[in-house]
């Protein structure tokens, strides 16, 4: 594998991005770096008190502290890990699972396809947030459970997209001729189908991770987040549960900064998703 053409094509992709898309990519990169280097970026621990409670931002605590005196910048940097992990974890799981289901359904057809389509129909009309709340409430809000529940509601889109793509592909003559040479289903899936649908899946992954991050934030915001790992939604939840926070100046840092981080992440992912959709499928543009 030579590396150079790949870099070149990546640069080409980047050039096709709109201004907002480029900015969004840079923001995501920054958040990613913050997430990776979270422990080195803050001199304070993110789980223990490191100063007096509710100090406004100053030189010592960059973004101030919360009601337990825990440094907010450390919490936000660490929360980036959790938000990104939930987002990309869910998206990968859902895109892979949904993609494989879509390929099998489209390629095998028949009863499997029928069952899958009915299942998708049922899932489509299922109200996702209420079901997620129910599942999280009953099974306990661990990070693993949350990723699992979110994936359960995210595989539908990739499955549908991939299925319709494969339905079209399997009528192509090169697939037919590969089949007549005795290519197995597994060979076809790995060699022909997966590479063909991977750009579509890549777009799905960006979109799905955006949605998963939003959903996780929503669940945490309701108090259903994993209490042992403080995501941004959970920081907001704790701040809002502080009685009368709006009558105090505390919300100016305790609520505002996690809110800002979450908004930047969500908007950036949305911009990138939209640009990718346009590049991969030019028909979707204006």
């Amino acid at each position: 594998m030579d590396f150079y053409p790949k870099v070149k094509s990546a640069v080409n992709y980047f050039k096709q991005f709109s201004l907002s898309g480029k900015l969004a990519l840079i923001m995501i990169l920054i958040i990613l770096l913050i997430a990776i280097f979270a422990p080195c970026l803050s001199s304070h621990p993110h789980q223990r008190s490191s100063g007096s409670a509710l100090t406004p931002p100053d030189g010592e605590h960059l973004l101030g502290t919360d009601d337990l005196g825990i440094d907010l910048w450390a919490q936000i940097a660490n929360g980036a890990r959790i938000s990104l992990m939930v987002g990309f974890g869910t998206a990968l799981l859902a895109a892979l699972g949904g993609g494989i289901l879509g390929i099998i359904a489209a390629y095998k057809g028949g009863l499997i396809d029928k069952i899958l389509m009915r299942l998708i129909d049922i899932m489509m009309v299922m109200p996702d947030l209420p079901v997620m709340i129910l599942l999280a409430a009953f099974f306990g809000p661990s990070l693993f459970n949350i990723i699992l529940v979110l994936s359960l509601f995210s595989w539908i889109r990739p499955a549908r997209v991939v299925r319709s793509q494969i339905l079209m592909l399997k009528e192509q003559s090169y697939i037919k001729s590969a089949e007549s040479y005795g290519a197995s289903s597994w060979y076809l899936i790995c060699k022909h189908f997966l590479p063909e649908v991977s750009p579509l899946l890549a777009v799905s992954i960006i979109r799905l991770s955006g949605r998963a991050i939003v959903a996780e934030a929503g669940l945490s915001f309701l108090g259903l987040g994993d209490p042992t790992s403080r995501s941004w939604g959970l920081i907001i939840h704790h701040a809002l549960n502080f009685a009368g926070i709006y009558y105090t100046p505390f919300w100016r840092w305790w609520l505002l900064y996690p809110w800002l981080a979450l908004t930047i992440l969500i908007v950036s992912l949305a911009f990138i998703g939209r640009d990718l959709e346009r590049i991969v499928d030019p028909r979707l543009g204006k």
Partner: protein
Amino acid sequence: MKKVRGMRVIEYLLTVLVIVTLNFALPRAMPGDPFLIMSETEEDVVVLTEEQREYYFELYGLDKPITEQYVSYLGDLLRGDLGLSIYYNEDVSTIILRRLPWTLFLVISTVILRTIIGSLLGTISAWCRGNFFDQFLFFNLITISEIPAFITGLLILFVFSAMLGLFPLSGAMSHFTTYESLWEQIVDILHHAFLPIITLTLARLGGIYLLARNSVITVIQKDYLVTARAKGLSKGRILLRHILRNAMLPIVTRTFLSLGSLVGGAILVENVFNYPGLGLLMQEAVNVHDYTLIQGIFLVVALFVLVANLMADLIYKHLDPRIESQEQTTS
């Protein structure tokens, strides 16, 4: 044609069954002892004696075989009996009915507002397509609609209630006040509901706007519009009678279809503004581990969403018979 519609209805019934069964199975599949978790709070730990456990098992009918439990559960549901709330010690259905009007008020006002504003802006945008105003609306509305409602809601609450003090911070009515007239009460309720409704409307505007813009753009290029213009009809008449009428169809369907995610948004937004509807009730129930109440709310919300989706399906087919023939050819 009858067959296709029948299939859809069966599908919905299946979904209802899945939801009801989920509701039945979850507390039984839940890890740990439900009675312990129910009676435990964060402060005190409860230990049940063997006698107490047996008493509870009998009280909730858990000593009977699972099929019998399921049948009696379905029977209770059909009678509208959602069980007893452990925390409030009241019928779940009574509590839900008390809170439901507030959520309905938010959702219905939002649907009306955003349909009107969205179609209006979409039409304006399509009318002056490509110029600065169109691009400005397009970019901003699409960006805002990417941000979930509760995030926008937090910002709106920061600015208008906490910083400027223009609107109340929580609740649906002022406490401890007596109203001198009905009018005063209405004003107070609207004052409290204003920010939540605006938040939901803003977050949901993008979809309708885009739809209206696209359908108007398609309609504008049709031959009959050239005819209408050639006939010398006034701009307003063309807009109302020819463009909007033909562009309405997808908007109506979309409105019903999006009710599901709108309810989801409302659950979260109610928690931002402390608005006493079902969403806030759900969080309260989660906080106090009131599982029967959580289940009851879930069931009501889920059924509401399903009915809305079914209505969207049926209305769409009713308004546009072409869909049915298309579906038959593809399936």
